């Protein structure tokens, strides 16, 4: 039998420190849904998603009750729609988004990811049509998430796509200006995108993935913060050890749930994503972990070093706890979804420039950042280019999920509620990058030796 402390440690993590399984995401390949008729393609997409995922939500809820651990989200990721729709006669890919939305509603998942295109070296016809349809798709559906990969370490950065995504983001904001530009919160622009990420908005089912797969994302920033708060004055060796042990325990939950879901649904287990994903709830913040290490506010000098230690220790602890690790695996720093980040941005401790530096040492990137509505598209493109460059040169995933909120200016706050939280409008460097962005073309792939 276990000793009392072990039992109550687990129970406290769940009931007091917000330990949860953030998401069970079912990846479904839609490659066999391609057809030359748009109507047939859409029917096949709907049927296949509903057939595979009809028991996903119920199974998730059953596991939740058997083990007594909350599973916050049940989600679906699919093959990038640009690949699936390409052989069809469809010109308006927003119709594919609508069918994804309908399928998501039919099976009861709260998000479906995969309205995506991979354009790091250039556009195909399907990519072009998909990117063009993103504003309509995200403003007229509720649960669909879109992503575009426009850079990799091996291909360089597609600057034409960078330019276009600035405009797409602006249009997404404009079309949903009455809802705080919410369409932008469902759109991620990536460099080195992983193909098995279970977290939204950037999830899709990569081409190297099996027919159907279960990926699980764990969470638990509150558990780590709590463990660190008890370590007054301990040195960094001890801090790192404590985070590793905690991450191990958190990840074991993810592994258990992933195996259980995989066997109950009779779908292979893919990966556990070792991310620390915050929510706006009190006690579920990554920023507060950094502050527990001794920083007055997240964003103060020292934040990048603290985050580097945290991110590395989470991976070291988590890797041994799971048989297959993948996805994004690192600490997330979404501003609007993290109570500590919101406070830090509001009191001026945290700037976009500091967040950019932080993305060099953690996953994923400039995430859920609200900026003034009059920020030019070229500036948004330039922010994307900077982030993509960090990913490309450092062989890591980086991403941008930025929200230029129409009618809002620095110091205002946009409220989303739920998991998306509330976002203070952050200051953007006012100097222009327009001439730079207008050049177009590709930034060549970087050298992988002579590293300095």
């Amino acid at each position, binding site marked *: 039998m276990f000793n009392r402390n072990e039992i109550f440690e687990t129970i406290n993590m769940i009931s007091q420190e917000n330990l949860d399984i953030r998401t069970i995401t079912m990846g479904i390949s839609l490659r066999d849904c391609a057809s030359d008729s748009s109507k047939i393609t859409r029917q096949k997409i709907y049927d296949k998603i509903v057939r595979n995922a009809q028991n996903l939500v119920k199974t998730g809820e059953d596991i939740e009750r*058997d083990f007594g651990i909350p599973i916050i989200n049940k989600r679906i990721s699919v093959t990038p729609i640009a690949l699936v729709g390409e052989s069809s006669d469809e010109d308006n890919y927003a119709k594919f988004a609508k069918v994804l939305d309908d399928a998501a509603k039919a099976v009861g998942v709260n998000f479906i990811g995969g309205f995506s295109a991979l354009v790091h070296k250039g556009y195909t016809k399907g990519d072009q049509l998909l990117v063009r349809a993103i504003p309509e798709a995200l403003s007229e559906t509720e649960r669909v998430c879109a992503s575009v990969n426009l850079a990799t370490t091996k291909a360089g950065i597609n600057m034409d796509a960078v330019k276009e995504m600035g405009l797409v983001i602006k249009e997404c904001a404009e079309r949903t200006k009455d809802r705080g530009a919410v369409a932008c919160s469902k759109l991620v622009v990536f460099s080195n995108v992983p193909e098995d990420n279970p977290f939204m908005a950037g999830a899709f089912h990569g081409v190297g993935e099996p027919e159907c797969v279960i990926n699980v994302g764990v969470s638990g920033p509150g558990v780590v913060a709590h463990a660190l708060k008890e370590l007054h004055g301990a040195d960094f060796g001890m801090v790192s050890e404590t985070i590793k042990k905690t991450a191990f*325990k958190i990840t074991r939950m993810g592994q*258990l749930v992933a195996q259980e879901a995989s066997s109950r649904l009779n779908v292979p287990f893919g990966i556990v994503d070792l991310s620390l994903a915050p929510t706006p709830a009190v006690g579920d913040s990554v920023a507060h972990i950094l502050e527990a290490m001794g920083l007055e506010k997240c964003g103060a000098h020292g934040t990048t070093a603290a985050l580097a230690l945290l991110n590395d220790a989470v991976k070291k602890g988590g890797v041994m706890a799971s048989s297959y690790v993948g996805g994004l695996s690192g600490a997330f720093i979404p501003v609007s979804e993290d109570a500590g980040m919101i406070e830090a941005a509001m009191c001026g401790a945290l700037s976009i420039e500091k967040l950019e530096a932080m993305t060099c040492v953690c996953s994923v990137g400039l995430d859920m950042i609200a900026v003034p509505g009059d920020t030019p598209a070229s500036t948004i493109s330039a922010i994307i280019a900077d982030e993509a460059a960090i990913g490309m040169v450092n062989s890591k995933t980086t991403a941008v999920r930025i929200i230029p909120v129409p009618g809002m200016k620095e110091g205002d706050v946009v409220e989303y509620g739920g998991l998306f939280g509330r976002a203070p409008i952050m200051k953007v460097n006012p100097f222009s990058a327009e001439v730079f962005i207008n050049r177009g073309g590709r930034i060549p792939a970087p050298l992988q030796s002579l590293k300095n």
Partner: protein
Amino acid sequence: MKAVITVIGSDRIGIIASITGVLAKANVNILDISQTIMQSIFSMIMLVDISNINCEFTELSDILKQTGEELGVEIRFQREDIFTSMHRI
């Protein structure tokens, strides 16, 4: 298959009697009980065998939750695996 039942709340007469009654009805065998009272807070951990349970796990879970509400204590009923995976390599 085994499960762990934990009970936390203010002490009163009949907590164990009520819970064990529910378990006996569901054909659940109790393997181990450990109980303490610290500053009038009652806490109990019970390891049970649910291999021959005569209802659904979730059904028993609901009944125990309701029993807890009637007694004014918090009862959790969880499969043992969650503790094994977290605390044993």
